[in-house]
Every structure is written in structure tokens, then in C-alpha cells.
């Protein structure tokens, strides 16, 4: 059985490219006004809740300050990112990935369950159980269910042309400058995930290879058919 569905692999790499473009062009855009506010308005640095550093050229797209070009990249990258997120959510719901791997039980949320899964992970670099452990479910669920959609919705809300289509979105997010602040916070939340994800993935290059080839799930050790879980996913999942 294939470990990563074709839809997952396609989305993973397209989305990875889109996120890198969006994040680096976003840092360039941040340099245009390095202050974040809450509420609907905000222009005076003394009202800012956060004064952001000036991001250096090597971290931005393009590699020098250019708001127009950075916005070109951001406007372009938003398409594969936003449409891709819709695509992967539909795919995950249809192919059962969401139900099997992301849905948590109340017991997954206990500190003991999370600590146990982290310990098991660091002990032998693999998980004995099927699918994702509680820590992975919570992390991936937070990325798919919270951070990625929040990026899309706050991004749409910041656009002055979109507010005429969905004025409720700005109200839900607490105003235009709040939406802008949340956009920034969620972007760094994703960056944090990205770091964990990369660190865990480079511990075993086969994991990266499998995201291209699809990989295979190892056959069960014994010839006893699994009883509770109809789908056997015994291969280790990292990052």
C-alpha cells in the first residue's frame, strides 16, 4: 500500500514552493511598515503593540527592498496556496486521511498522551502504533485546521477590494490592523512548524524521498489481520 497519496505529494511540493515565496515576499512587505496594531486603524508607531525588526535582504524576495515586486510575488503565490489548501482539504475528506490521521480523541489531548508520544518518538525514532501519534495529530491538526486557513482568511481580509465582498470577515478578525497582526503571527507559527518539520525530515532522507515516490507501507509482521484498524499504516511517520 502506498504511504502518501498522489494528491498529498502534489499538494505538499506545490504548497512548499508557494509558502517559501509567500513567506519571503511577506518579509519584504513587512519592511514597508514595521509596526503592528490591534483594531481597525493604526499608523503611528507609538500605538503599535509590536515593532518588527527590518528583515535582511537575504531573507526576503526579492533580495532587496522592493514593495511592488514583493507584492507581485505575494499576489501570485496566494493562488496556489489558497486554491491548494481547498484542494487538499477536499482530498483529505474524500480519501479518509482526515478521519484516520488527523481526528483526535479526547484522550489524545492529555499531557500524558502527548509526553508519551514524544518520548516514544525520540527513543527509537519511530512509532509502534498505526498512523499518527497524539502529538503529531495535534500539530498537524493545528497546521491544517488553524494556521493555514488563518493565513488565507487574514490575507483576504487585508485586501481592501475583498472587504466589500465579506465585511463580516473583518469584524470576526477584530478589524483590519488586527487581521494584519494575525497574518503576521500565523506566518511565524507556520515558520515554527516548518523548522520542526525540516529538522525531523532530515534525520531520515528516506522520508523526503517518499514524499516524491509515495513510499510503501511495510507489510504487517504477523499474518494476523488487524482487527480494530482496517487500514494498516505501520510505517514510521516523522515531522
Amino acid at each position: 500500500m502506498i504511504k502518501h497519496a498522489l494528491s498529498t505529494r502534489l499538494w505538499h511540493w506545490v504548497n512548499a514552493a508557494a509558502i517559501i515565496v509567500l513567506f519571503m515576499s511577506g518579509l519584504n512587505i513587512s519592511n514597508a511598515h514595521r509596526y503592528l496594531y490591534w483594531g481597525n486603524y493604526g499608523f503611528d508607531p507609538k500605538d503599535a503593540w509590536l515593532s518588527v525588526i527590518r528583515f535582511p535582504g537575504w531573507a526576503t524576495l526579492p533580495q532587496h527592498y522592493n514593495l511592488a515586486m514583493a507584492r507581485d510575488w505575494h499576489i501570485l503565490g496566494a493562488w496556489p496556496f489558497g486554491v491548494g489548501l481547498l484542494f487538499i482539504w477536499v482530498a483529505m475528506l474524500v480519501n479518509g486521511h482526515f478521519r484516520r490521521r488527523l481526528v483526535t480523541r479526547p484522550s489524545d489531548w492529555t499531557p500524558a498522551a502527548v509526553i508519551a508520544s514524544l518520548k516514544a518518538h525520540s527513543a527509537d525514532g519511530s512509532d509502534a502504533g498505526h498512523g499518527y501519534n497524539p502529538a503529531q495529530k495535534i500539530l498537524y491538526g493545528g497546521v491544517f485546521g488553524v494556521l493555514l486557513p488563518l493565513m488565507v482568511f487574514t490575507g483576504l481580509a487585508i485586501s481592501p477590494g475583498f472587504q466589500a465582498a465579506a465585511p463580516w470577515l473583518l469584524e470576526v478578525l477584530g478589524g483590519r490592523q488586527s487581521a494584519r497582526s494575525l497574518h503576521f503571527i500565523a506566518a511565524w507559527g507556520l515558520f515554527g512548524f516548518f523548522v520542526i518539520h525540516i529538522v525531523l525530515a532530515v534525520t531520515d532522507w528516506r522520508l523526503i524521498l517518499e514524499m516524491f515516490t509515495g513510499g510503501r507501507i511495510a507489510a504487517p509482521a504477523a499474518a494476523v489481520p488487524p482487527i480494530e484498524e482496517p487500514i494498516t499504516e505501520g510505517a514510521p511517520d516523522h515531522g
Partner: protein
Amino acid sequence: MAEIQRRSLLAGVLALGAGACSKIAASDTGQSLFEAAEDGHRAVQRALAGKQGLAPEYTRAERSPTFKGNGSVTVEDAFYQEQLAKGFPEWRLMVGGLVEQPLALSLSDVRALPQRTQITRHDCVEGWSAIGEWTGPQLSALLDAARIREGANFILFRCADTLYGNAYYESIDMVEAYHPQTIIAHLLNGEPLPEKNGAPLRARIERQLGYKHAKYLTGIEAVASLDDIGKGKGGFWEDLAGYQWYAGI
């Protein structure tokens, strides 16, 4: 050792990526990709909001305590400074181009037209926002009085200010020109426009970013094409720095 190799590989990949990106951006394919992406956003926004969909309006209590002036905050011109001191008695707003009846409106003519007052948010391309109460006639009233001719596709704003040696100008399409919140404002928070905010007249294009809201207006022209105006990109910042002509994103 393996760790160091991996790190230099990663750095190499990043540098390659950045180099590839600048090559893409400079190419014709890259430019048409950017344009297609921008057109797509405009099409989706217009489809969802409708041509007449309104930008949010606020209450007086929700206004920002002051309204930031940005870009040009003065006009270094003897006639302008003299008119500013006197309250613009001889200032004229010309309405021309592809129209049946060109107009030259004084400030009292502008004040005599039906007025719209709206408390709206101004979003600068840089990221900041301010909220103010604007009063003035709808642009559509001026265009109807001048009677737009067949073939007019854009409305051009001519301005008294110059930046980096070039005259400021902007343009919008006919959808935005006939939008109910598109007004020629002469009051900000109930007072004549301050100099830094574009006295005596400025455009309010409420569904687009601040650089569209041309200040120090001297003329409004209906045109078929933007190609022969300035450097042909439809606005001062579009010509100078490559800003997106559609500023709703």
C-alpha cells in the same frame, strides 16, 4: 561532516531559488504570470462583491484621532500656496477628455452638487490604516453632468503635486468610477481638507489602496487608453515603481 554538507546544500538551494525567482520576475512569462494573478484577484473580488458592493463604513467614534498625510504633503507652487492661503477662490477642477460637455468647476460648484458623507478606512500599500469622514459629490454626478462619450474606458485624475520631479496622476476603470463611494472629497471630518491630505480636492476610491486616492486634484479626464499617459502604466507609482494598477489587493 554530513551535517555541514547538508547545510551548504540548503544554502545553495536557497540561493539558486532566489536567482531563479529574479530570472522569472524579469522574463515576459513572469510578468504575464503576475498580471494574470492580479487580474484573477480583481475578477474574484468583483464577482463576490458585485460592482456596487460597499466598503465598510464606520461611526464617528471609530475614527482615528488624526489622519496621516503620506506621499506628497504639500505642493511647492506659488499659485497653489496663494490659493491655499485664500481658501482656493480661483481653483478650478476641469472635467474633460471624452465628454460631450467639458466642465470647469469652482469649489462652490463642487459644494453645490448633491453631497455624500462617508466614514471609511484608508489602507496604505505600506500596511497602515487611518479612518476619516469624507464629504463631497459622487464622481458619477460629475461624469453624468459632463456626459461621457462612447469609448471612454478609464477615468484619469490630474494633480497639482509633483514627486521626484514627475506630476502625480492616477486612473481607475469605469466600474470604480461609478461606484457609489467614489467621491471627490472637499471635507475631512467636517473641515476643508488639510494641505497634507490633498487640499482642496481629493479622490476617494474606497475599495482600493491609498495611492489611488489622488490628492490636489486639478482635472478629471475620460480616456480610452492609458498607454500614452505618463509612462503608460496608469499612475505615478505604477510608472515609477511598478505598483499594481489594480490596487484592491
